[in-house]
């Protein structure tokens, strides 16, 4: 190497959307394939992103390949726009995608990237949701070999996964899967819906919005196309159940801020040791509060 070599100053200059155009085109091709085969884990050559594998690099590659000027983006993590990872991802996208707007309001976004939650507000057919996926394959709990899992998926053979549920009921009288609940798409492929709570699984079913899943480290893309059936894997006589937010008297708990009784609640301990419940979807909570404020103002006026 030439000892006088100096790094050119444009060495760190990036094109729109960080990835080179060939990479984005490959991702888009695989998104199309994933939409055509609902629930099928489409392999792709996942690129390294400037944040850690597991921090949403799969979802980020989907977002960067899809986003264009005129899009409005919302990024959430744990339901919140302001958590460290959401801030970091949004900042990076703003940096590399000039001309793209960002928002916290679910209804204003054209593209939403999320980790662990689907927004409470029902999404529309004009919107796309990108979910970040750590483990794409629901069969991994019963079969470690990827080659063998691929055959099981192809044949629609989910008996071993169901046997795992059977064993759960035998031993605990309950299905112990808390999040990442295996869900059958369009009657064939069973996918891992990413670590969303069971509360969010019904939102996949017949969703007007396109839902895309990106697993960067495991290098897979899959999709629930709009208006597609999504059914959690269950027994005929053991119904699927979402998280239970009722108190000791059987009443549905409410958010301590906005009073919502229809949202997924975060639980934490207050300074006085009391248990506090609050909407996990911060935008939903804010919008409810501001509606309540303006309604109150109307009344007082």
């Amino acid at each position, binding site marked *: 190497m030439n000892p006088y070599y100096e790094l050119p100053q444009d060495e760190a200059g990036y094109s729109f959307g960080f990835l080179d155009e060939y990479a984005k085109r490959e991702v888009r091709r695989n998104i199309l394939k994933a939409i055509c085969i609902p629930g099928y884990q489409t392999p792709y050559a996942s*690129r390294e992103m400037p944040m850690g594998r597991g*921090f949403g690099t799969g979802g980020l590659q989907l977002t960067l390949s899809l986003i264009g000027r005129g899009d409005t983006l919302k990024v959430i993590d744990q339901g919140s726009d302001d958590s460290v990872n959401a801030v970091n991802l949004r900042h990076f996208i703003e940096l590399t995608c000039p001309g793209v707007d960002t928002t916290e309001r679910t209804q204003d976004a054209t593209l939403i990237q999320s980790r662990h939650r689907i927004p409470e507000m029902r999404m529309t057919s004009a919107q796309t949701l990108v979910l970040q996926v750590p483990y794409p394959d629901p069969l991994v709990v019963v079969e470690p070999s990827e080659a063998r899992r691929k055959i099981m998926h192809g044949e629609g053979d989910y008996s071993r996964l169901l046997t795992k549920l059977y064993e759960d009921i035998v031993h605990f009288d*309950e299905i112990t899967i*808390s999040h990442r609940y295996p869900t059958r798409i369009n009657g064939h492929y069973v996918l891992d819906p990413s670590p969303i709570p069971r509360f969010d699984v019904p939102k996949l079913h017949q969703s007007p919005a396109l839902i895309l899943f990106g697993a960067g480290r495991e290098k897979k893309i899959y999709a629930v196309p709009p208006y597609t059936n999504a059914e959690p894997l269950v027994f005929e006589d053991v119904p699927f159940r979402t*998280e239970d937010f009722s108190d000791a008297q059987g009443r549905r708990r409410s958010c301590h801020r906005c009073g919502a009784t229809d949202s997924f609640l*975060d639980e934490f301990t207050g300074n006085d040791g009391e248990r506090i419940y609050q909407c996990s979807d911060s935008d939903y909570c804010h919008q409810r509060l501001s509606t309540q404020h303006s309604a109150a103002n109307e009344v007082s006026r």
Partner: protein
Amino acid sequence: MGYVAIKGGGIAIKGSLEALEALRAAEGEQGVPLSLSAIENQLRLLTSRIVSEGGLYHPRLAALAIKQMQGDTLEAAFALRACRSTKPRLLATPVQETSRMRVIRRISSAFKDIPGGQMLGPTYDYALRLMRIDLSDEAPEVFRTIAAKFMGETPAGNLPETFPKVVDALRNEGLLPQAPARAIEPFDITREPLIFPIPRSAILASMARAETGSLLALAYSNMRGYGDVHPTIAELRVGYLPVFLPHPITGEEIEAGEVLITECEVVAMYENSDNKSKPVFTLGYGACFGHNETKAISMAILDRALQKGMKEGPANPSEDPEFVVLHIDGVDSMGFANHYKMPHYVTFQSDMDRLRTTQAKAESKQGNEK
């Protein structure tokens, strides 16, 4: 609302980055910022490791990554990879002949004498690992004369530029199988997804940019008994390989530059073959950017183990291509290990829901039994 840990992410990140930067410059007034040239030369093996694991031959950028990441090899290789993601693939090199390598070191543990002779070259193999206290306070005047003195004392022209390859000699004697046909286009792991079973070229490419420690651990498991390669190093060479590229207009191959690489070929005991053809030794191949001998040897041993696993079915983790290839990448594994530090409030809430329900059921069952 002080207790909502999820708020104020932007401010926290900013503060965290400032703290990181302050630690980098913690020497204060006594500090001298590291020059990239100093890192590239004085920490040449670290730079080698980063170009290799980063999968991008750019020593100066690697040096920058080392400086920026404060010496963390996983982070530095990661930064180089992310940089690579922004670059389109404009050209693919044809197969490069490593016999053209300008060698700085080549050894064989199979033969006392090899065509062209052994050349120990720069190595720590026989350096005593005693602390050299004199290095702790080196006089710059002395330091600057070391290289010139070495060059002046080494007689020029008594060494050939290139050496013939040991495995070619073994092939000519019929001790090794013939080289595989060149017809197949090598697999590009940066552009094609891995769908198992994958070809050997995809495995070799994955190992070439694997994390050194992970590769070593798996290869070591095979050497120790979870496998049975029993390798002999036919040749290990380190040197500068001229890279030829087709001229954009004439198509003629022209030398575009050179890369420092380490190459290792291990020969292992022959196997009983099904048919009655002559038994021959088997070969494992390892090569990577930079001067990384441990990595090249580990890779060669694993290549040999994986070839066996692909033929007969894996008997050990180190013989299973899926197991090896999916667990040696530093960017993948370190990223995932670290992602556990991110908030998992929602999933943990969901976990608590399941645990409380099953606990309640277990309690009511016990109650009924009493």
